[in-house]
């Protein structure tokens, strides 16, 4: 089966120290493998969105090496190779996520406690950076909706505001002011509850590398990459639309929604076509990054040119 192919690690990767240290997570993962097989139909439905029957050319997984070597993660430096170089000593345990704002179950949740009630799932998603490059990545994580349901938002909660860790001692980029810190992102509550929205803890069948947002990052595949906030420490339910970091930095270039839209150009480049990491040629970018059937209804009646 297609999913298993990516789950089974090569023999060379059996129990490296890091995995051993994360054995609890690993056990949870093994447990969930049975569940995945059982819920095969459901998982397949998600995959179906990514790899249409008779997989299109260019839909193969992107090389793991490329996805882990070419990153936008300004906390560790603004060059694409900086995050990999500067994040290797980043401490991802212990890790606490603060749940606050307009919800009933507020509090500081240890990461394992936040994740453990949910079944870990594997999802292969397209990834589309606002800079017009793209990838196809096998993620591992839990639905964001699960965490939100457990937080039990109050009726007044309309948005969820999400924060990255602020720790300049570990994140050298935060010592300079290229953008404001900590990094903030946000989703409308119905977007956040969408079954495609994932809180990822792993990719390519492994624990998430630090440069890709360990230990916990958001993956919303129909939106531009910068919405996929990394190293999450805080979820806050609010009644007003959050101002994200990139909106604050350049509101004419980056909007709140940041839905992938080939018909709305970035002021400095066209969004009509994207280039997959490693490829030389571009391909047309599909509306909502290919997830139109699943998410378009979230935005019915909205002017997507204005709400970019």
């Amino acid at each position: 089966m297609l999913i298993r192919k990516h789950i089974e690690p090569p023999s060379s990767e059996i129990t490296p120290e890091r995995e051993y240290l994360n054995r609890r997570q690993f056990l949870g993962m093994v447990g969930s493998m049975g569940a995945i097989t059982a819920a095969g139909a459901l998982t397949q439905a998600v995959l179906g969105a990514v790899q249409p029957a008779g997989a299109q050319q260019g839909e193969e997984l992107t090389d793991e090496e490329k996805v882990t070597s070419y990153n936008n993660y300004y906390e560790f430096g603004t060059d694409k190779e900086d995050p990999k170089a500067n994040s290797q000593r980043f401490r991802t345990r212990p890790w606490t996520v603060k749940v606050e704002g307009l919800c009933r179950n507020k509090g500081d949740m240890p990461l394992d406690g936040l994740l453990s009630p949910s079944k870990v799932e594997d999802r292969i998603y397209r990834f589309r950076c606002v800079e017009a490059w793209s990838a196809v990545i096998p993620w591992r994580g839990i639905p964001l909706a699960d965490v939100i349901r457990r937080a039990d938002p109050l009726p007044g909660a309309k948005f969820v505001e999400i924060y990255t860790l602020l720790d300049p001692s570990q994140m050298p980029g935060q010592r300079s002011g290229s953008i404001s810190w900590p990094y903030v992102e946000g989703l409308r509550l119905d977007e956040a509850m969408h079954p495609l929205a994932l809180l990822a803890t792993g990719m390519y069948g492994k624990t998430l590398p630090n440069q890709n947002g360990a230990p916990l990052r958001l993956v919303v595949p129909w939106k531009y990459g910068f919405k996929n906030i990394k190293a999450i420490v805080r979820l806050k339910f609010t009644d007003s639309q959050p101002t994200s970091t990139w909106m604050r930095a350049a509101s004419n270039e980056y909007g709140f929604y940041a839905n992938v839209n080939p018909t709305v150009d970035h002021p400095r480049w066209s969004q009509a076509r994207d280039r997959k990491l490693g490829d030389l040629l571009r391909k047309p970018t599909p509306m909502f990054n290919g997830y139109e059937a699943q998410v378009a209804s979230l935005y019915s009646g909205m002017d997507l040119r204005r709400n970019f």
Partner: protein
Amino acid sequence: MTSVAATPAPRARPRGPRIGRALKPVVFVILLAPAAWLTFALLTDRLQGDVVKIIEIDTGTLALRSLAYTLAITPLRQLTGWSWLATYRRMLGLFVFFYATLHMLIYFGLDLELQFGEIWASIAKRPYITIGMVSWLILVPLAITSPNAIAKKLGGARWKQLHRLTYLVAITATTHYLWAVKKDTFWPLVYFGLFAALLLVRLVRLRRTASTTRS
């Protein structure tokens, strides 16, 4: 040797020119090496990430860096008295043109994939592309007038006047860089500072020679 940098040598340094001439091929290879590396890395899939963006940005940076070397030659020569440095100026200047041309061809050819509608729209609509294009266009006459024969035909004074445009390129090219980046303005500002300092050194020098000739 080169008549183009036709400033009289202040002092005769008998051993200087020989060292300068011997080192020239070495400098040539050093400046060409990044292009060779990028080609090799591209062909052997060693560039991890958005390959076209990587070579596009690298060639742009190399053009600016070569421009900084070119503009540093004269102040450095005046500071040290190493008149042989002047013979490097044309080679360095032509490297600016070489990398800037590669940079532009990669943008139009690989990044925009020769879609002429896109190319035209980008030049017309996006100010950082417009000013980048202007920078390249200014470089063209400078490159064309670099051979000795043409420089001679043009005449020293006119050649010199024309090649003052190098400073205009320094301003337009750095502006292009500044407008092209997102929020990471550190390096564009470093280049601005550097070019401003080099220009200032030259202006101070100019004023000093002007005042000494007057008195």
